[in-house]
């Protein structure tokens, strides 16, 4: 095997290389001293980066000022505040459609045991979709009530980021409309 290029080693070190290629590189490492040194150096660079201290958060008074100023922006953008209310009906309509399609399409089978708020729906796929939509509505509702979704969002929580991105995707669609 020809030695992989630098790009591949970066993706390998950071875990972004797809599994099949990753296995090939690992096999190559076993027999190539130069590449092994390369991979170790990159791993050491990453490990060093991870030891950087997280500096103190912005001062509380700065966050307070930001919150106040952002509140003024928010008041000027009623769509941000009211989005969830309108979106809730879209989600509810979607849930009805999913339910109808699910009932019309799937023959009742023995469902897997899943925790669901819709026990009358027997198809597990439909249950999962409804649960997903319901969770999205709950997040938006929690946001609109000034409460953090439960569990509270953490800055490092990728799920929170995804939820935010989902939220603002919807907002963008609404602005476009």
């Amino acid at each position: 095997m020809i030695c992989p290029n630098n790009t591949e080693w970066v993706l390998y070190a950071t875990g972004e290389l797809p599994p099949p290629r990753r296995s090939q590189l690992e096999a190559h490492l076993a027999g190539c001293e130069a590449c092994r040194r390369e991979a170790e150096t990159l791993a050491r660079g990453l490990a060093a980066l991870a030891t950087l201290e997280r500096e103190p958060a912005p001062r509380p008074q700065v966050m307070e000022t930001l919150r106040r100023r952002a509140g003024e922006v928010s008041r000027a953008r009623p769509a941000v505040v009211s989005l969830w209310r309108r979106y809730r009906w879209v989600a509810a309509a979607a849930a009805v459609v999913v339910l109808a399609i699910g009932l019309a399409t799937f023959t009742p089978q023995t469902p897997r045991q899943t925790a669901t708020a819709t026990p009358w729906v027997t198809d597990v796929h439909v249950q999962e979709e409804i649960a997903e939509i319901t969770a999205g509505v709950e997040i938006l509702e929690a946001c609109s009530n000034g409460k953090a979704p439960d569990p509270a969002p953490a800055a490092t929580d990728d799920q929170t980021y995804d939820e935010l991105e989902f939220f603002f995707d919807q907002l963008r669609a609404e602005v476009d409309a």
Partner: protein
Amino acid sequence: MTTGPGDSGSLQTLLVAFAPRVYGLLFRLVGRADVAEDLMQETMLRAFRGLDAYRPEGKFRAWVFRIAVNLARDWIRRQPREPAVSLDDNEEPPVARSLRAMDPPDGAMARREGSKRVEVALARLSAADREVLLLRYYGELAFKDIAQTTGEPLGTVLARAHRALKKLGELLPEDEP
């Protein structure tokens, strides 16, 4: 952080999720806590005001970090031209000085010393290479999202990451960090 009049839950969620990381990135890029606080506020406010400009084909997170990076670049460009980083290993980089100034009297000095070595190594990178690593560290962005954030081709970003990680790995002894 509490919810005040005129504030919205979505706004609060956005601030809680993004502000500390945006601040962390800016602090490492500009090296000054007061400037990082100002730029962080400006980033978040611009994100809110500019929601219309956000296009959902990319990650919302990457979009916010792009605003922050552009503000940091502008600020750095406006500063008098002087070497921001000393190549002398014994000289403390600005970020390390700022961190030390904020350290409580009983701060863990040994931990700071270890982090300082990484700060020095990081400070010796080019600004563009450092930017890529910091976006990876604070934004936890995939390289394709970093490319979107910096406005550079993916290949360039990966080349920067490779160069930066390799330098960081080579500058630190094999038994560290």
